[in-house]
Structure formats: C-alpha cells, structure tokens
C-alpha cells in the first residue's frame, strides 16, 4: 500500500534512477534499501524506470534527491554530489533510451517550470557496467542515508 503523503508540497522526494540491467539497478536497489529505514512522513522514496518519467516525479514536490549510478573513474561506492554540468558530462550520448538522459530530463523539467526549489543529485560511483549492484548497494546504503538526512537538515536552515 502506498504511504499517505502530507497534503502540502513540502515533500522531499528521493528518486532512484535505474533499469533492470546489471549495475544500472543500483539506483533502485538503494531506494529499496532506504525504504526499509525509518523516515519522517514528508520523505517519499520512488524508483524511476527511465528519464522520461523523471519529469512527472519531480512535478509536485518542493525538494528532491536524485540517485543514479555514474561511471566517474573514482572508487566504487563513492557518493558524489553532482551539479547539472557534471551530470551532463557523466551522461554519454548512448547512456539512455533515445539519447534522452537524466540531464535532458532535468532540462525539460526546468523548461516546464516544474523543477523543485531544492534539488540534490547524488551520483554513486561505479567502475564498470558489470559490477555487482547488490554488493554496492549494501556498501553505500548507510552513507547515502546520512547524505539524505544532511540534505533535509540543510533545507530547515
């Protein structure tokens, strides 16, 4: 059953981006991990199956955290806070269906005036597409939980 969300839009939506393929599942697995933890009522955790769906998920929230696996050359499991520019650099031409990637989806969301006021993009570093997503999610889960809590605290300041 879906969690009952507060009626106001002060929701922090945590969105894990991924697919069913290999280490690309990481965003989803991390969200599954986060769903098993205790969170305040205004945290809403969702899996996103493709960047085109991201615009819809960002529509009715004031703040959002986006989680996606990225190949950066850094050690696997590192949480990297990304800006739009870095995200664009991470998103190769072939990284997504129809060449429409997370960076494109955020640009579209912004053009539609639906971008939340506060947004954090956490890239989870992977070294290659064949890495074990389950193992990585176990390693990264607690640190990601802490990063989200810090993001939420920063909103209250």
């Amino acid at each position, binding site marked *: 059953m879906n969690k009952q969300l507060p009626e106001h839009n002060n929701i922090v939506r945590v969105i894990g981006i991924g697919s069913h393929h290999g280490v690309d599942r990481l965003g989803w697995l991390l969200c599954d991990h986060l769903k098993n933890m205790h969170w305040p009522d205004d945290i809403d955790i969702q899996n996103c199956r493709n960047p085109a769906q991201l615009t819809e998920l960002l529509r009715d929230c004031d703040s959002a955290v986006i989680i996606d696996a990225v190949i950066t050359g850094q050690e696997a499991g590192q949480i990297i806070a990304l800006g739009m520019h870095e995200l664009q650099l991470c998103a190769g031409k072939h990284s997504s269906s*129809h*060449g429409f990637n997370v960076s494109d989806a955020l640009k579209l969301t912004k053009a539609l005036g639906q971008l939340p006021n506060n947004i954090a993009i956490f890239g989870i570093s992977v070294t290659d597409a064949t890495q074990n997503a389950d193992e990585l999610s176990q390693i990264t889960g607690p640190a990601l939980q802490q990063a989200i809590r810090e993001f939420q605290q920063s909103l209250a300041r």
Partner: protein
Amino acid sequence: MTEQRNISIHVPVLARVEGEGALDLHIRNGIIEDLKLTIFEPPRLFEKFLERRETDQVIDMVARICGICPVAYQMTAVHAFEALFDTDVTPWIRDMRRVFYCGEWLQSHALHIHLLAAPDFLGFNNVAEMAAQHATEVRRGLRLQALGNDLIALFGARSVHPVGARCGGFYHAPDVNSVNAIHQRLLDAREDATELLRWTAALPIADDHQHFVSVALRHEHEYPMNKGRIISSAGLDIDVNEYDDHFREFQIAHSTALYSLLDEQVYLVGPLARMNLNHDRLPPALQTLLDELDIHFPSDNMFHSIIARAAEIWLVIDEAIRLLENYTMPQQAAVACKPRSGIAIAATEAPRGLLWHRYELDEHGLVCGARIVPPTSQNQGRIEQDIKQSLQAFGLDKDEDAIRLHAETVIRNYDPCISCATHFLRLNVHSE
C-alpha cells in the same frame, strides 16, 4: 555557368533515435552519389539466446529486446506458440491482450511525437527547447505517455520489460479497483487525445509526396494489432505463414541490421502504412474527427506519420475505454497450453510496424531455432529511398546544415529502433 558543388555529410551519431546509427551522404553537382544509413550497433544475438529455452521463458526474454515495445515482442511470441499448440483463449484474454497492446502504442507514440519528432517540425533542437514555448503540449504528451506505461504495468506488473504475459493468457488478472481507476484516467484522456490530433494536424508539415508500398496486417473487422493477414498497397494478401514466399532478408556491408524486401522492392511498415491500409477500420467518431480536420488517408506524404500516430493514440484510448468498461474478474487469467514440436509463426503490429516471429520447437517443447523480423530492419531500405527523394524535393542547393537537418528529420520520422533491429548474427563456422 553553374558552380560545381560537392558536399559530403557525415552524421556520426543520429540523435533522438533508439540505438546507434549514422548517416553518410555524398552529393556531387546536385546529384546524390552515395547515401548510407549505417547501423553499427553491435549484434545482440537474441535469436541464439532463445535456443534451448521453454516457451514461457522465451516470452519473458523477448521482452528484453526493446524497452519501448516489449509487449509487441511478447504478444508475437505468444501468438506464434498458441497457433502451434492449437490453444483457444477466452474472450477476456483476447480483449485484455488488446488493452495491453493499446498501452504500448499509447506510450510509444506519445514519446515519439513529443520528445523525438515534434521538435523537428517546429524548429527546435530538442524537447526542452520546445517546452519553453509549448509547455501545455509537452505536459499533455508526458501525461499520455505515463497513462500508456501504467496500462502496460496493469497487466505486465511493470512497464519496461513486463512479466505478466504467458502462453494461454496472463499470470495475473488485475483487480476491479485498479481497472476502474485507470478506466477513469482513460476517459479523462479523451480530450487530450482529441487536442493532440488537432495539434499534429496543424503542424507545418512539408508537402513531400512519394510513391511507396505500404505493408501492414489486416483484420476482418478490427484495426489490426494482434492478428490478421499481411497485406500491401500493391495487392499482397497472404497468411503470416506465407511470409517467406514474398519477403527476403539479407545482409549488406554497412549495417548490422538485416535489410528486407517484398518481392524485391523496398516497402514501408509502421503507423502510416497501417493507417493507409486500415483507415476504414477506424471508429466512426475518429473518422468524423479526421474529416473535420481535413486529414485523409491513404497518404503518400511520409511526414503524415506523426498525424497517423496521433490518430492511433485516439484509437487506443477509445479501444481501452471500451474493453475495460464493466470489467469483471475472470474465472481464469490463462488457459492451459500443451506444447508440441513444430514451426510456430505469428505477426503482430508493433508501434513501429509489422513484427514477424518464427520458432522451431523440438519434441520437448524447447526452441531449437528462432527468427525475428522487427519493423526497423524492414524499413531500412525505405528510409534510404525516402532520404534521397525527400532531399531532392527539399533542394540539394541548400546549405549543408539544412540538408543534414532535413535528412535527420526524415530518419526520425520513422521512429527507428536500431536496438531492436540489430539482434542477428550470421556465423559461418568452419570446423576441421
């Protein structure tokens, strides 16, 4: 004296298409000397992966060929196996499969119209640029796409690579409350579909008339989706089992996808071909709306594909509303299938056009050979022919950027799914 002008255009990676392809174009003195739609995405070997698999495993595996049209692959495999096993499904199963397929056409067409094709017609580089001036239309497109995805998930548990279909029916029947909720959303989407059709009809579409052969399924009384005979605008009318008597697939050097010819001629599959051959199967209300908008099929303008897609969106919303009205839980979501050896063949209409499957099953019911002919590989020859004809009509004296953009627009108009098309591998094994 006419100035000599040589142009070489190389588009190394085609944008806003699924998969990896390129275009090479050489123009000398106003004549196209060479033109190649190069498909270099590596072969994905799906047909080999399917060997030694049981039929229900095949149905889940073929869904992985495409993230946009998995239902088409699943339904074609299901119909092939059920034809071999002499399986009679219930009217409920037949109807719900059509709804399942409606969801796929809806999300795929909405994606293509708004995110991929419309920016070309309106002079934008991408949908984000277009959204700044056409936010209402883009929001509507995203709403329609989401509805299509949810319709797929209703039966398939998830919209990308769904897992609900099986030989004989579905693993699970959706409950009445879930169906009623989506039925209400479909009713609400009727207005979106009508406005979308009006919008596409008003797009500045080039007057580009060409001669081509349309190929699609034809059903006795329905707009074709899951079943029918294969017909063409050139008079072909065959059973799906006779496909190999008329169609020939072959490999060429510049493409990792097979080419396909009908009686040695290139041909078109997809929404415009379907609409050209089946417009008389549209519901009267849609025919009236098309008349009102002065849209008439058959059309020999390939750019009318975007209007055909919008009309099909209207159709599938109407179909899904009709089929889900007064929904009740079935006694059974699937009937029993009894596997046996033999050749299993079927064709259905994927969003991008005719999709044909052939499987050979052994005495244990395992697949020992598979052949899959997707729409994009069938359209390759037609796309190249279209680029040549369309560029000549457009004017080869235009500047290079304009020529490049026009050629890309022609390609994107087909909504090519290169990832679907590159699944074969011809292996010549020499063993000593």
